[in-house]
């Protein structure tokens, strides 16, 4: 069971500021952490490895300093870290990021499962996981709260929904994005930290993964941030009271009044 866990280094949510010029997150001088959802994906990968054997590879796209989250991943049980890093990747949106991760994975060899956090806490898009699965034409499930079973190339998972959960099966290789409920991540171990300190993090450039220039970085990104603003408060709220029937009648009357 070879597992790839996609990890993003994000600014610590305790200290978030916007760059007034670009309307994007100001990252300078802000402490960086492993995206919290990715910690849960990593823990699940390590647990699968402990049960089924195999290797866990932590993969990240980011600037050279993102190497530190890959070392942290090794201290939490990953076997190796791969950093996809190149100035040409700068300004990538979720599409270009998905493309870049796909190329990096294709350059790295065989795998059975890709695990991602549900979303990153900086961009909050939740698009890279599904985007990567789309790029790779892999079956995927988002918001996984439990892996129920893994047997004979079929993985059975629970997908968190607003009103409960779905039980889904999919063949591996596959991609899953996970929510925090899936597990309680371990604290990095002492032996893991010592291993991480000595580990060599493999660094891949755009040329190493054979990425096409027009598909990466700002040039490969269809998204443009036009404006970031706080939405104005919505209009008045009205609470209906009385029995259920009375409340429904009041609601219908209210809706009719708008017609």
């Amino acid at each position, binding site marked *: 069971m070879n597992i790839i866990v996609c990890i993003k280094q994000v600014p610590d949510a305790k200290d978030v500021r916007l760059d007034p010029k670009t309307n994007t997150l100001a990252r300078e001088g802000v402490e960086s952490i492993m995206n919290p959802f990715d910690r849960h994906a990593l823990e699940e990968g390590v647990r699968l490895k402990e049960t089924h054997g195999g290797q866990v590879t932590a993969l990240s796209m980011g600037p050279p300093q993102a190497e530190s989250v890959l070392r942290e991943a090794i201290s939490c049980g990953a076997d190796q870290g791969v950093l996809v890093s190149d100035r040409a990747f700068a300004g990538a949106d979720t599409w270009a990021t998905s493309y870049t991760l796909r190329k990096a994975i294709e350059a790295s060899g065989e795998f059975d499962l890709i695990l991602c956090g549900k979303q990153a806490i900086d961009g909050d898009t939740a698009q890279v996981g599904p985007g990567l699965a789309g790029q790779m034409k892999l079956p995927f499930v988002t918001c996984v709260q439990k892996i129920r079973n893994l047997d004979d190339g079929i993985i059975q998972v629970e997908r968190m929904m607003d009103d409960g959960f779905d039980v889904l099966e999919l063949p591996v290789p596959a991609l899953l994005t996970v929510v925090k409920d899936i597990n309680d991540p371990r604290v990095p*171990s*002492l032996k893991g930290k010592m291993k991480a300190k000595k580990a060599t993090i493999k660094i891949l450039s755009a040329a190493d993964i054979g990425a096409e220039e027009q598909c990466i970085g700002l040039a490969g990104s269809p998204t443009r941030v036009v404006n970031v603003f706080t939405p104005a408060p919505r209009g008045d709220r009205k609470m209906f009271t009385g029995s259920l029937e009375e409340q429904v009648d009041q609601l219908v009357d209210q809706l009719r009044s708008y017609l």
Partner: protein
Amino acid sequence: MDYLLSEEEQMIKDTAREITEEKIIPLRAELDEKNEFPTVILEDMAKADLFSIFVPEEYGGLGGGCFEIVLALEELARGCVGVATSFAASALGIFPVLIAGNEEMKQKYMPDIASGKRWAAFGLTEANAGSDASGIQTTAVLDGDEWVLNGTKQWITNGGESQIYTIIALTDPSKGARGASIFVVEDGDPGFSYGKKEDKMGIRSSATRELILKDCRIPKDRLVGRKGTGFITVMKTLDISRPGIASLGVGLGQAALDEAVVYAKQRVQFGKPIISFQAVQHMLADMATQLEAARSLVYAAARHIDANPKNMSKPSSMCKVFATDMAMKVTTDAVQVLGGYGYMKEYPVEKMMRDAKILQIYEGTNQIQRNVIGQELNKEYI
């Protein structure tokens, strides 16, 4: 203050701190209220390799000593002294094997201790043997290839939760303390059972229980070290373990000071935060000063002990008595700074003050520690 820790020492401190922040603090109030043993947290500590810090490298450990244990326990005690005590008791329980056990015995037990697969406990205290440990009445008689143990141990930390117990018993009752030996008893051994579980004032998440040995038969090779040397090993064990208890005082004192300062900055009375009043400032200043003095003494004593000096009893007792008396005072003052709120269970200082009291009592009362220091002084000055 910067104690110039090495990279590895800092790593141990950081790892214990992460366990405290992520695993202990969110659960401590519930464990305290329910009198519940922190099994899950000990498993988390095992995964983080904390149980391996005091185990020699040849048995799968990290090869640390007293100082490494002190660093870890200090951070764990910031979260909960009950949880930290459960960890410390496992180290205490296996020290006799490390100090006096033969190679075969170490090979048998130390790897499991290092990985956290099995925990240990130390069985010395009895109903009539507290401060006067020589009053033990548990006996061990050799019958063919087996030792037969009879007696009841009282207030044993980790009792009923650990899998490995070091039991002090008399192999030659006529010789008193010189007739004592140490044995390893395992959970499930015939004739070994658990008795009354105590309901305590503080450290309620730790298990404190009776051990009952009724014609308990164990293999001959469970004798730790030589017959009749049990008390010497017990004294060496306690010399090494006491700085650990002292560091629980330091961690607890730090936690109480942190709560008190944060509260004093927020609480407004007479139109000002109460930290601006000199009466409160002086209390906080004394708490911080006593705390730092205790930390310095504990660190120095632990490093001294790791140098394996001929006599370690005096510094060991000095740091235990100073740091735990400090913890009682600082936690009591923290409750005072928080006033009525501090007395309520909604704030953590109430539990901290309850937890502090045991530190002055267990692993040798602070009166016994002063006896030790006094006797050493008497020997030093001719």
